[in-house]
């Protein structure tokens, strides 16, 4: 009896110890990564949150601003323009990129000669240097003698758009460049999802007499829903954060036609040195992305089915 109790005791202690040891091991594996995250992301984020309520030019004394920075948002018409432009960009980019990448994935999922080559070719813009991409796009859309406009003239368009040199066409030009750049990446995600759809579903549907469209509509699309959900969230977030492409292609111009929130934040912070105000703009962007992501997650149940 006694011995049995003893062994029982020791085993429970050692189980506790083992658990603690196990946890420690796990934490020590997480630690290096977490340290990097804390130093380079978490602390700056918290600092930025605090900054939104301060006046600071990066060198002189910091003073408390209260809600001044947020009040200024209402008066700053460049902020208003940048906010609208950001939505314009997101609404233009997200659906278009999803459609194009889904289309490409469906095409390249077919038994096609040289499909690996095409898959690589479409993925290539994603890994190419962004500055090179921007320069090439500006060349393609060069208003006077660029290939795109030459082609349009050949088709009989007498006055083709002036693309990035025009207030009306600058944003569509940037959106097209962005779609072209990111379609390959999302195509790969769709391809992976497509390959995960069991072929017996299609076989059963074919037996039931479903045509191609019906198979796509009632099998492929629902089965792709988790991937679509993931892609829509990732794309929305990256699109709200757009900065580099615009900085290199148009620098927000002509005028303020392609000025977006992150570019405005950058200009306020690093050209005008109003770190407090720029943090307030960044905070607004953060809230917008947060709200949209929450809404997306709420709506997830309605159309995403993890089977």
């Amino acid at each position, binding site marked *: 009896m006694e011995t049995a109790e003893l062994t029982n005791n020791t085993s429970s202690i050692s189980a506790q110890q083992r658990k603690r040891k196990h946890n420690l091991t796990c934490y020590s594996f997480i630690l290096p990564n977490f340290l990097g995250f804390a130093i380079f992301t978490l602390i700056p984020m918290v600092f930025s949150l605090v900054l939104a309520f301060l006046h600071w030019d990066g*060198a002189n004394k910091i003073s408390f601003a209260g809600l001044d920075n947020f009040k200024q948002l209402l008066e700053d018409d460049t902020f208003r323009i940048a906010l609208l432009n950001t939505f314009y960009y997101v609404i233009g980019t997200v659906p278009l990129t999803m459609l194009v990448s889904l289309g490409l994935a469906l095409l390249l999922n077919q038994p096609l000669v040289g499909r690996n080559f095409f898959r690589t070719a479409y993925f290539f813009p994603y890994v190419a240097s962004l500055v090179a991409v921007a320069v090439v796009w500006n060349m393609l859309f060069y208003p*006077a003698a660029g290939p795109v406009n030459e082609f349009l003239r050949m088709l009989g368009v007498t006055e083709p758009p002036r693309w*990035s*040199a025009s*207030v009306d066409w600058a944003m569509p030009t940037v959106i097209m460049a962005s779609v072209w750049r990111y379609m390959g990446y999302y195509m790969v995600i769709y391809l992976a999802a497509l390959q995960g759809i069991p072929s017996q579903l299609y076989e059963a549907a074919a037996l039931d007499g479903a045509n191609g469209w019906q198979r796509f509509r009632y099998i492929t699309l629902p089965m792709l829903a988790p991937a679509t959900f993931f892609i829509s969230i990732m794309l929305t977030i990256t699109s709200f954060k757009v900065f580099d492409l615009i900085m290199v292609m148009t620098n927000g111009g*002509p005028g303020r*036609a392609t000025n977006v929130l992150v570019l405005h934040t950058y*200009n306020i912070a*690093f050209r005008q*040195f109003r770190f407090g105000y720029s943090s307030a703009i960044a905070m607004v962007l953060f809230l917008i992305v947060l709200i949209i992501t929450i809404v997306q997650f709420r709506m997830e149940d309605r159309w995403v089915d993890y089977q």
Partner: protein
Amino acid sequence: MKRNLRLFTLIVVLVILATGCTAPPAAPDTSELEAQVADLQAQLEAASDDEAMAELEAQIADLQTQLDAAEEAAAAAAEAAAAEEAAPEPVTLTMAIWDQETTPYWQVLADAYQAQNPNVTIELLDTASAEYIDKVNVMLSGGDETDIITIKDIPQYSGLLERGQIVPLTSLIADAGIDTSVYSGAVEELTYEGEVYALPFRSDIWILYYNKDVFDAAGLDYPANDITWDEFDQLAREVTSGSGADKIYGAHFHTWRSCVQLGTVQDGLNTVISDDYSFMKPMYDMVIGMQQDGIIMDYGELRAGSIHYRGVFENGQIAMLPMGSWLIGTLIDAKATGEMDFEWGIGQYPHPDGVEAGTTAGTLTSLAINSNSKNKEAAWDFIQFYTGIEGAKVLAGTGNLPAIRTPEVLDVFASVEGMPEGTKEALQTTTVRLELPMDPNVSVVEQILNEEHELIMTGSVSVDQGIEEMTTRINEALSE
């Protein structure tokens, strides 16, 4: 045995130290000798007989040689003391610059200074020109210790001094006894609330470059030194020819705001910080007119294609190019390497009607000391060289215009190989206006001006609309 050896070494070291520390032999007092000579000379004048005179003269000669020797010894001693004082403690100075590869003078000037000061190493911190100001701003906000900051333009300067990131130099300039008048007013332009934070080493003015071959082919005279903007417009229209790929444009306005707006502030009645921009209308009307008539390349295309003014001029596509004098050195190189195969000339910048010829706009490139620098003294010494007459001569020798323009410096500049004729006349200025005035709001104003300039030049808004927007937006921004 070992111990003895150690003792011996110790003694040797002590002896060396002792001899090294002893003061240099005291030089004989020269003033005493001088007094003796003077005394004897007085006696000589007073003496009457030849013999006494001869004797006295001999004495004087003897003393004179003693005096000379003493003076020599004193000089040698002083030199030795100076050498000891300058005990070459190695210093490394870092300097923020841009476009090192295409701008040879950074290295040339650094080398010239290092040759004089072997203990100093100059490290150049290179950045692409377009990102230079942003990068330095970010660096300094992060507490960077780069010693010497090159100031590219006035907005950068006013930003740095407002944030206290550069050191005031006024008292140092006074202590060093630097005569700031040699900078012909540039130092006054850099003075803010009684303090100067940078000294200019380079000062560029806007001039007119032209392609002589184009004018020869058209049978026209080269642009005169004294032309108004209207005459410039007329001339550009006359010299425009061809079409398609062979088209030669009469003139060229680069995409910078300043290319158009400088002509509007030449009369000195307005600066680019204003509460009413209607004074810019005539110039914009002229440039837009030229653009619509195909006399100059289209702004939107220049921007979309990131087309550099240098390329189109070197390719012989344009007849006249109003541009800063910084291009001179580049064109000399291009001509020497054969990249550019035509004759070129320079003339004075065109001016508005009723403004004196030789009135132009200019930019200053200056040096300042970072407040975080650990080598402020060495940096100041370097800046004195760089911005002083010696630096100016070295800089002029590379085909760049120094801030100090004495006749001597300009001679060096004009005699650079490949310098076009008439350089000295073209660089004659009556008034030089600063491209941007010193003002704490200058960077905010400049951004708005840039945006509206883009809208006007791309034809997105009319000239009147654009100018109206400039006025309202800038008034709003400045009232905040």
